């Protein structure tokens, strides 16, 4: 399960830095690339997706209460802010990128440009 959020570095745990790399699934269809990532604890307002120089960056910030260890008696997981970057090819139509967050699962849809979509080649008969 997603639970397996890889810990990037322990050093920044106390600061408001990014230290979790969320696990991701990426698949390709004829018209788009779909990216799904598990970011438990993050609400819609706290997700930031930026696209810059072919780099897609996903940032998820957690609420103070989720990271605080107040009254904690037993710990198996530590949550902190999420960050992950992806290098995206020129084939993507940047304006068409959409994202949805449901139950801690973020889905980003990256549509392909018209010229990158598969084309059927007609065979002419003589």
């Amino acid at each position: 399960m997603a639970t397996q959020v890889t810990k990037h570095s322990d050093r920044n745990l106390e600061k408001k830095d990014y230290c979790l790399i969320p696990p991701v699934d990426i698949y390709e269809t004829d018209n788009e690339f779909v990216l799904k990532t598990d970011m438990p604890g993050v609400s819609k307002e706290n997700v930031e997706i930026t696209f810059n120089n072919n780099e897609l960056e996903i940032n998820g910030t957690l609420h103070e209460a989720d990271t605080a260890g107040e009254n904690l008696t037993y710990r198996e997981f530590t949550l902190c802010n999420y960050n992950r970057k992806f290098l995206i090819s020129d084939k993507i139509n940047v304006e068409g990128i959409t994202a949805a967050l449901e139950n801690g699962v973020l889905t980003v849809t990256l549509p392909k440009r018209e010229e990158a979509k598969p084309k059927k080649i007609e065979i002419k008969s003589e």
Partner: protein
Amino acid sequence: MFTTYDLFDDMLTLRNMVERFFDETATTRRRVELPYINIYEKDDNIIIRAIAPGVASSDVNLQLTDNTLTIEMHRKEDYADRPYLRKEREFGSYKKSIKLPYFVDPDKVEASINNGILTITLTKHESVKPRKITIK
């Protein structure tokens, strides 16, 4: 295929296997069952938080027996029938039992899933709360 057999190759492979076995066990591998939970205690309440991204509330089963709480959940795969470039997320069924430090009121259990985190709030039962005894 076109190389000659070297006994030392096999020996090195064996040595690597043994080394890897010791490297990967004990300290480096966390033996914690899923779902991962955190327990918070405040006054007469116990709050259990479990990581459950993509889990619908209908796929969670909670059972309270005496002072043992069992969390059972199923995370459905959302795989598409398409070629995958990357597959890192985990799916499946998980079960975990938690022994509570005291007897809780079975009528006052509250549970909710928000943003992929399951929160269960339990309250101490009246019968186990400290009581003042008056001397006649």
